[in-house]
């Protein structure tokens, strides 16, 4: 009986490997003399092209007295450039049939345009404008300050539990710059002088800190010519790029606090210090979160939401970051359930993975889910462009888009139990209770 089970699992694993191979994503990669990394992936199935630029700068690269800069730039750099008028950037893309957006994390800022395939040159020209000579002046700074303030109100003040990440990271990190979140401090933005913005731009928005990743329907030879035309003469940055080296000291004591917010239902949030993304343990931590909360049959869902009905919502979220970060859990109590009860129920599920090896079957389920997720991740050209850039910047290997799955598959059941004990310790976490503010 046992033998059959093992061989079935083996077959599945072999099949998995074969399948991932069959859908390999092909790409080309090269570097310009000024240090700009370029990645190209061709996919002619729809006549669109995604032009993306990843700048390796996020909130962790900010001066502690000037937090919010990286995210502020994500706004500021749509203001225009020497050859693009104020407010024209977005319009130029949309009126040429494209969409655009950008986002900022702790570790990087990402810009993208998705254009009809005949507008690739436009996209390259525009990104070169942004990299070479974006418009950074008082007017733009003023306008975007107001916009960012509204974003702050909308996303953090007026949204129930919206301040969660801020409250969590603020307590979890004392030394490392992950202690503030990308939205940063409005006060710092108000205090900042125009020279400081210009200096930030010259330091971080340079070709040697950027990755241009293009995916979609285009001619590779033509694309290379245009890339050369628009990007090769952008000068390499001259300012020193320093990245934080601070290591957050190991935690020895649980941090526990209560946040009163405009919420109706109490919630509990936990943040466990976990290793940096890409490390072998980080994959195990991610899979642990998956056992706990991916799918209706996952442990937290099944036990706490469905059987015990203690939570309206509960989930475990690995929060991958370039430096060691946090793995998060979040539960909103059902009406009438005390928040302590919910916390104890979540802890019990964590204890189970600490004490008992997960079954072969559950382990196989997890691998099947990962296989499916890895396929879905590359459904759209913009996703492929972003994934390629991320893999290159974070791990120096864009081909992980094809091979990262192997890293997951290396994780064993014993690893899961081990990381559960190593990182999901009470003295290694922050626990927050969100309680309704009395009116």
């Amino acid at each position, binding site marked *: 009986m046992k033998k059959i089970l093992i061989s079935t699992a083996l077959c599945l694993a072999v099949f998995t490997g074969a*399948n991932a191979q069959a859908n390999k994503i092909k790409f080309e990669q090269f570097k310009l003399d000024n240090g700009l990394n370029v990645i190209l992936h061709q*996919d002619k*199935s*729809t*006549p*669109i092209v995604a032009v993306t630029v990843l700048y390796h700068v996020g909130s962790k690269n900010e001066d502690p007295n000037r937090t919010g800069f990286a995210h502020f730039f994500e706004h500021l750099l749509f203001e225009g450039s020497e*050859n693009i008028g104020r407010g024209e950037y*977005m*319009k130029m893309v*949309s*009126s040429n*049939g494209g*969409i655009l957006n950008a986002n900022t994390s702790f570790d990087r800022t990402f810009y993208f345009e*998705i254009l*009809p*395939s*005949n*507008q*690739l*040159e*436009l996209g*390259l*020209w525009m990104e070169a404008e942004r990299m*070479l000579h974006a418009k950074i002046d008082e007017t733009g700074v003023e306008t975007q300050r*107001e*916009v960012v303030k*509204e*974003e702050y*109100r*909308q996303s953090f*003040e*007026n949204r*129930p539990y919206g301040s969660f990440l801020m409250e969590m990271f603020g307590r979890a990190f004392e030394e490392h710059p992950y202690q503030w979140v990308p939205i940063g401090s409005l006060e710092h933005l108000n205090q900042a002088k125009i020279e400081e913005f210009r200096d930030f731009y010259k330091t971080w928005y340079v070709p040697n800190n950027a990755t241009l990743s293009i995916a979609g*329907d285009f001619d590779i030879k033509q694309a290379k010519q245009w890339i050369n*035309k*628009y990007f090769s*003469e952008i000068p390499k940055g001259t300012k020193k790029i320093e990245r934080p080296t601070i290591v957050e000291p190991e935690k020895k004591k649980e941090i526990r606090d209560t946040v*009163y917010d405009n919420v*109706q*239902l109490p919630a509990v949030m936990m943040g466990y210090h976990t290793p940096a993304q890409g490390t072998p343990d980080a994959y195990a931590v991610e899979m642990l979160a998956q056992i706990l909360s*991916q*799918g*209706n*049959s996952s442990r937290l*869902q099944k036990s706490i*939401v*469905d059987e015990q009905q203690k939570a*309206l919502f509960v989930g475990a979220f690995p929060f991958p970051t370039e430096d060691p970060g946090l793995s998060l859990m979040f539960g*909103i109590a059902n*009406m009438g359930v005390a928040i*302590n009860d919910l916390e104890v129920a979540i802890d019990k599920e964590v204890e189970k993975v600490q004490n008992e090896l997960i079954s072969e079957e559950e382990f196989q*389920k997890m691998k099947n*889910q*990962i*296989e*499916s997720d890895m396929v879905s991740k590359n459904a759209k050209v913009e996703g492929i462009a972003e994934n390629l850039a991320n893999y290159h910047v974070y791990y120096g290997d864009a081909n992980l888009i094809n091979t990262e799955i192997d890293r997951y598959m290396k994780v064993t059941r014993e690893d899961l139990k081990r990381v559960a004990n190593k990182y999901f310790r009470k003295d290694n976490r922050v626990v927050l209770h969100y*309680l309704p*503010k*009395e*009116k």
Partner: protein
Amino acid sequence: MKKLSIYILSLTMITGAFAQKLDRSKVPAPAPAPKINLSQPATFTLPNGLKVFVVENHKLPKVAFSLSLDVDPVLEGDMKGYVDITGQLLERGTTNRTKQQLDEEIDFIGATLSTSANGVYASSLKKHQAKILEILSDVVLNSDFKQEELDKLKKQTISGIASSKDDPDAIAANVRSVLIYGKKHPYGEITTEETVENVTLEACKNYYKTYFRPNVSYLAVVGDVSVKEIQPLIEKYFAAWEKADVPVNKYKMPAAPKQTEVAFVHKEGASQSVINITYPVNLKKSNPDVVKTRILNSILGGSATARLFMNLREKHGYTYGAYSTLSADELVGYFNANAKVRNDVTDSALTQFMVELNRIADEKVTADELQGMKNYASGIFAYTLQDPQTIARFAIETEKYKLPADYYATYMEQIAAVTVDDVKEMAEKYITPNNAIILVVGNKKIADKLTEFDADQKISYYDIYGNDYVEALKPAPEGVTAETVMNKYIEAKYGVAKGKALDKKLKKIKDITVRMDASIQGQSINVTRYQKAPNKFANAITMGTMVIQKQTFNGTTGKSSGMQGNEDITGDDLEDLKFSSVMFLDAKYTDHGITYELLGVEPINGEDAYKMVQTKPNGETETEWFNVASGLKVKSMSVQENDKMPEPITVVTELSDYKEVNGIMFAHKTKQVFGPQTLDMTVTAVEINTKLGDEVFE
């Protein structure tokens, strides 16, 4: 010689190439426009009427099945929410599988399956397609409605409603639907705790049996499949699904308001106003205006480059985003322009909204602006084609809404044909700021500034469910005054009416000790309050044997001691303490210069109470509520300031569970809320005349 010249020549060429700096002011011209080939899905129909569309796309080894119903909405009345719940119940067990089995089997193959009142969606890797299709059919054909699962869902839904009560967007969405469609229209019904409580299993089962029928369903199959391989599987799993007549429901078309109205929902503590300018629109999907109205809306507010965004965010910085929607719908569509803006610019933002809504109908858009938006619309159309689901959706919509067969195939041409005059005509027809509802969810402090936007200069207030907001305070009945309320209170509390007999009764009481158990932030503490005639007072808070805080007044001097150190109470604080330490102050209020004013009657915890404002001789006020029936004080509220606190805090005290001790009624339960903290106190003992020594008060 020759060699050299070539050398020189090549040198000049190189320098030339370097010197000739790129002219970046030139915006690159587009290459020739790409051709878009819209593939037609293969279709077939089962004998039971189920229409199947198959879109082959072999890019990823995945397949997705999406089953959708084409049925009219139903009025759900006092069980509003049951149709959605039916949709969620579908995936909670079949006659063949329990919920746990379903969940396990779906998760095991890394697939997803989700159900709703409108259909079921499932996807998996290609290698699991037969398995997921079999599960999908089990859910659709054999769903097994269990009371136990309904109860769980009800509990979750009710908790969800509770958690969204504070969400200004959820409030705005609810109230908007009521105001646009009215509560008697299926789009205007709101799910509340009460309506969910009313949902019965019978209603859910009935909906499932009536509406989940193959003859009103479409099944789209998209992905790495061929018709040849999938048709036999579909026949195998769906042939047993029985067809039946499905009811057709018709509704009256809601009308736009005759003139513009401002509707306001107050949200305590809001830092932003959620603005919606909205009204119903009669625009069916098959209406030839639809493509033109899409262009119109994309110029007005369809994106982050449209007029509303450029004006309210980029020019004025009022908001993070301002958009508009003009939706076509078979029953009734709507227009909505919306933004969230900070409190103090709510009126300015509304002014700008109105400017833009008027301008688009009054003035022609420029040819450039139109061309840009046409390009954008075409670009988005191409972009959505990346998702193979789009092809399936197009085919189903063509069928469902009876669109011309080549509607989507010629979509880009229809966009290209829209003219400047078309846009103006559409704006005149569909953008009607003078017949709109301006709904603002925000802080009522700013509401007065919005009066000018209402045609009658009168703002209507609503609660979070779109009911008329009724000011809770009613006038007190004829003959009731502050004095009669206080007399009744004194008699109720002390058992004797104000006068000599009462004085005599109170004189006999020399001291009172009240012992209480309390909890604050999950910690248990004990509170003991001592009083001795005529005006000695002490209050001790202890945890176990540890004294956390003690406050005393011996008739002349006051002290506070405890964990935060010892301190003499002086100045105004001492005066306050002296005043409030008088035993039976409430019975003798007139002697001590306390006055009351009666404001009216309002419910406290469901029972009518007189609302009174007490003013002390030093001018400080406190609001108090006295139960109309019992006469006893049930609540008080005061705003307290202290140098140590950054801002004044409101202290609310609720009194309940009155019990008689020695002929006097004492509230045995007290709940005190100050700032974010709540202190619950329960009286464990009231001791009278225990000969308390003076040392207690030192």
